[in-house]
Each structure stands twice: as structure tokens, then as C-alpha cells.
């Protein structure tokens, strides 16, 4: 399954938006955190898990989804949220903790919820899987269209929640796709030292579903396999497990010194940065460089607008902390 010209450009644009967004967040995150780094300070406090390098997974999968489909995301959710169509301005404002944020500042960057596009998060490893099964079950029981995609990291494939969810999805033939973003690091522990199998796609066999491994962090290859899996789910043929080789270009969180990385690994990863590679491919496919320049400018403007919106928004009253526990 190959993307149309429009789908290719959509993927590239969302990758660029995600990257520019995170570059902006990275810069602002450091405000108020120098000379001494204290996570609690600055306009964006708390942990910050950047997803730069992992954009191909989000766009290759979400290119096949519309607003009505469900995505459950991880503690590293920006690229997934952007590709799913979460409102960028409200998302930025949420990360700034402002009243105009998705939850008015109650959730923050690990808890992005946008019911308008059926996007939910969990900051707990592996906990995207069960809710995706439930949403898929809901569609099946209500005879409504829609598939659920659970994103998770390769470390989450060692959680019980992952295995329980795969068994449920397999037993109940649910329209759900599990997408593992294998960036090869669970914070500081490499996949090779934490996981009994070299590739998690083989685990699909234990749950009677197809498993695919996609090397190379390649948006087109991801588009192909994810498209097949999502079509399979839509047709009522049940779940699929996909593991994608991807690259975490940043630390686990901002402030991570990454001393666990072997010498030269980061340089090698940056040399394979998927965004310039995607642009090269688009040019080779006949897209005009000036059109891609314009697309990049548009992406940058969108990000600038979202960041300005977040910066200029007000904080909610302190006492808003006490509301919205119940509906």
C-alpha cells in the first residue's frame, strides 16, 4: 500500500509540525532552568519527553485514521497527538499549564486528552493497550465504524498490561492495532538486555494475530503495513501487532545526560534523521523543492501560532484545581 501524493505531503507536513513544535518546546523548556537545571522551574515545568526522531511512526499510522478513530498514546505523545489531529493550540497551552489548554492545565504533557478526535493518553507504561481494546469493543458492540490504535514503546511490551490486552483483542477479534515504537531504549536499559525476544512482532503469534516488524524508521514502509493492519481491523478481521524500528534523538526526558548511550550512537542516529530523508524522497518522487519549502514554512507558522497562543493565554484560577474531578 503506497501513499498518494497528498498522503505523502500530509505525512511530511505532520512530521515537520511535530519536529518544529518540539524544537520550540525544547527551547522554552530551558527558560528559567539555567544556570541550575531544576525541572520544577520555567514556563514549562515537570518532566518533558520529546519524541523527535519518532515522527514516522505517528504519521505512517495516523494517515489511515480519521477523527472518529481512536488513539491511545503514551508518556511521549506529542507526535502521536499531532498526527491524530489534536488541536495544536490547545495542546501547546496544556503543556504551558494554561486555562486554554486541553484540560485547563490539569493534565500536562503526559495526559493529553482531546475527545473531539478521540485521543487519550496515559503516563503509565503499557496502559495505552487496555483502553484501546475497550474502545474497539465499544465500536464492535455498537456496530459503529472505527478502529483503535494503541501506541506503546518497546519497553511496554514487557508489561503485563500489554499481554493481557493482546489476549483480549485476540480472543474477542477486536478492531485494534498495537503499534510499538521501538527506539531501543527503556530510559537507560537497552532492549537487548530487557527483552527475551529480539523483535516483539513474534509475540503476536501467542495471541493468534499477525505481527509485523518494520525496520528503518521509514514513513512509507510504516504507511504500507499500518494501512494493511487498519484495513484488516476495519473489515472485522481482528487485531494486528506492529513493531517499528525508530530513533529517539533526545534523551528519555529533558535533563537526561544520556551517558548510557554508546559513543557515536547519537551522531549515527542524527545522520539517519527521518525528516531530511523524507524530503529527499519527496524530491526524488517529483515534488518541487519550492512546494516543500512552502509546506515547511506553513508548518513553522502553525507552530509559532500555537506557541504564541499558549504564551499569551492566562492561567486558570488556582481553585480550578478543585474542579472537574467529576462531571
Amino acid at each position, binding site marked *: 500500500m503506497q501513499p498518494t501524493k497528498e498522503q505523502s505531503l500530509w505525512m511530511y507536513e505532520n512530521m515537520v509540525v511535530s519536529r518544529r513544535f518540539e524544537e520550540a518546546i525544547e527551547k522554552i523548556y530551558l527558560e528559567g532552568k539555567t544556570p541550575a537545571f531544576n525541572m520544577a522551574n520555567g514556563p514549562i515545568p515537570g518532566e518533558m519527553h520529546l519524541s523527535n526522531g519518532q515522527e514516522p511512526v505517528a504519521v505512517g499510522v495516523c494517515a489511515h485514521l480519521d477523527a472518529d478513530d481512536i488513539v491511545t498514546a503514551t508518556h511521549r505523545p506529542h507526535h502521536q497527538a499531532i498526527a491524530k489531529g489534536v488541536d495544536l493550540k490547545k495542546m501547546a497551552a496544556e503543556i504551558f499549564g494554561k486555562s486554554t489548554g486541553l484540560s485547563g492545565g490539569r493534565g500536562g504533557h503526559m495526559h493529553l486528552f482531546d475527545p473531539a478526535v478521540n485521543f487519550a493518553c496515559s503516563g503509565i507504561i503499557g496502559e495505552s493497550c487496555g*483502553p484501546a481494546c475497550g474502545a474497539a469493543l465499544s465500536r464492535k*458492540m455498537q456496530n459503529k465504524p472505527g478502529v483503535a490504535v494503541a501506541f506503546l514503546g518497546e519497553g511496554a511490551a514487557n508489561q503485563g498490561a500489554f499481554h493481557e490486552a493482546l489476549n483480549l483483542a485476540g480472543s474477542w477479534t477486536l478492531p485494534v492495532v498495537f503499534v510499538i515504537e521501538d527506539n531501543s531504549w527503556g530510559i537507560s536499559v537497552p532492549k537487548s538486555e530487557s527483552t527475551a525476544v529480539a523483535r516483539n512482532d513474534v509475540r503476536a503469534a501467542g495471541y493468534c494475530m499477525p505481527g509485523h516488524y518494520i525496520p528503518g524508521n521509514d514513513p512509507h514502509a510504516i504507511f504500507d503495513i499500518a494501512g494493511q493492519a487498519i484495513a484488516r481491523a476495519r473489515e472485522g478481521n481482528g487485531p494486528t501487532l506492529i513493531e517499528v524500528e525508530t530513533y529517539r534523538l533526545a534523551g528519555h526526558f529533558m535533563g537526561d545526560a544520556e551517558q548510557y548511550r554508546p559513543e557515536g550512537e547519537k551522531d549515527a542516529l542524527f545522520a539517519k534523521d527521518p525528516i531530511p530523508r523524507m524530503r529527499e524522497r519527496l524530491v526524488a518522487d517529483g515534488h518541487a523543492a519550492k512546494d516543500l519549502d512552502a509546506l515547511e514554512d506553513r508548518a513553522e507558522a502553525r507552530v509559532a501560532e500555537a506557541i504564541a497562543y499558549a504564551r499569551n493565554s492566562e492561567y486558570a484560577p488556582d481553585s480550578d484545581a478543585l474542579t472537574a474531578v467529576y462531571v
Partner: protein
Amino acid sequence: MLDQPTNERRLTIARAMAEAMQQEMSRDPTVFVMGEDIAGFGGIFGNTRGLFEEFGKERVRDTPISETGFISAAVGAAMDGMRPVVELMFVDFFGVCFDAIYNQMAKNTYFAGGNASVPMVLMTSTGGGYSDAGQHSQCLYGTFAHLPGMKVVSPSNAYDAKGLMTAAIRDDNPVVYMFHKGLQGMGWLGTEAGATVNTPEEDYTVEIGKAKVVRAGTDVTLVGLAMGVHNALKAADKLAEDGVSAEVVDLVSLVPLDRETVINSVAKTGRLIVVDEDYHSYGVSGEIIATVTEHDISKLKASPARITFPDVPIPYAKHMEQFCLPNPDKIVAAYRKM
């Protein structure tokens, strides 16, 4: 036994719960039930009996033994427009799946700024007294009530059981529905007779967050829930033999907690004894006493007392477990020390 009037039906709590689910499932196609052994088996504790036969296996869904999987699936289904009633067979099993409960079910509404809701019921059995030992006999009321974002109820009788279940299913928030095994009315376990009461056939709700004065009195307030209410009522009978008038408050709901009814009762009686089968420390009993003392300590004529389970795992041997459990005599003795 005296003949009951023909227009009154006495139901067990198990039957009352099942009837509430049956009526809500008939009324609302988004309601469904899932859990371990809840379909053809009718629930280990009888509370889903008859549902499978009427609604079939899609809406009365046996699950694998995967509490994390199916409870977090219920969260996802609830956020997508369904109203799942999901069973955690024994509350003691929360240890294998608590993330789904307190990090997802209870928090997603807040994380969504109130723009999403999680309308689900998590029903779970509590309580001991039948030598099932330390992993099948706990109450853990305080554990669930402590964590924000979920309502917590526990009925003491079939009337409340039905009305609370109906209210819980219709509630747009997650409700933890804790039913005490010793009140359930199962063939294989003795049941507190007072739990089986007249229960209307038509649907109705019992308000979540409203306590009930189930016996009026003037000398001491006995506060409990579920089995604690029955222990308190029996103690009140014993105290009455000595001319002491005890008022008994059934909390019905822990979250929201009806502090006002407790405060008003103690304002009248001046004495407070809390009966709680959960562990002694850091729990419901301490919360009730703090509620009264924070409000107006001058209303108390004596230090409050609490009859609770000691801070030890629940022992197996019958004599040791009974030694630890609350009972009417302990309540009477506590009053006499006041």
C-alpha cells in the same frame, strides 16, 4: 416464619443487584456487564444470575483472568459511549490491576478537564468472617475511598443494593460498588438475615452520597456501613436492654461522604462509635471521627471510639479471625467505657 404480604418481595442483595442490572440493560443498550464467571455461571456471588440467559454473551461477557486487561478495557469502552458494569471478583485482587482503577478510571475525567467522562461501575466483593484468609477477606474501603475520582458505595441491604446499582449505572462518573459477601445471600455462605429485605420490583435509585439513620436514638451514635450496620443494630438492641438509646447511621456511600448526617447525629447524642471491618489505621473510622471533631469537638461528651479490624493480615483460623472482627459485644463494651 410469618407470611409476608403478597405485594412485598424480599430479595437478597445478590438478586437485587442482578435485577437492577437487568432493568438498566433493558432500558439502555449501552449497558453491559463483564468479568470473570459472570455469564453462564451467574457470578461467583450470584449477582449477575439470569442476565446471560436474557442478554447473551455479547452483553454479559465472561473475561479471561486478566483484571488489568478488562478493567482498563472498560475504561476505554466507557469513554467511547458505553456503560460497562465490570466485576473485580474479590476486592483483594485489586493488587493486580490497580493502575486501571486509580490511574485511569478515576483520573481520566480530570485529565480531560471534565470534557470526557468514564461512566462505569466497578463492582467487587468485600469482607470476611468465613475463614477465607488474608487474600480473600479484606474490605479495603479506605483504600478506594482515599483516592480521588471515583465514587464508592456499599449497601447493607437489598433495597439499597438495587437502588444504588441503578444509580451507579446511570451515574456519569465511575462508581466502585462494594458488596459484602456476608450479606449477599448465597447458598454456600451464611447470610446476615437483616440484609434480605422488601425490594420493589420497579426501578428506582438510592442517592449516592446520602447516609441513612436506620435507627433513631439519643445516647450514642453508631456509624457503620455494610456488615458494620448490622453489627451496630445488634449492639443497639443489646444497649436498649440496659436502657441506652443508640442511633445507627448507615453511611451507604463513602464517596461522596454524607458528613452532615453524622455530624447532626452526634450533635444530638454526644457520643460516637464507628464500626468498620476494614483495617484500623488510616481508614474510614479515622475519617468519620475526624469529621466530627473538626466540625465541633464541644459536642462530644466522651472520646470517640472505633471498632475495627486490627492492623494485621486477616488470619485463617476461625477463632483468630473472629477474635479480630468487629461484633456487637465489642461495640457494647466500647460504649460502657465511655
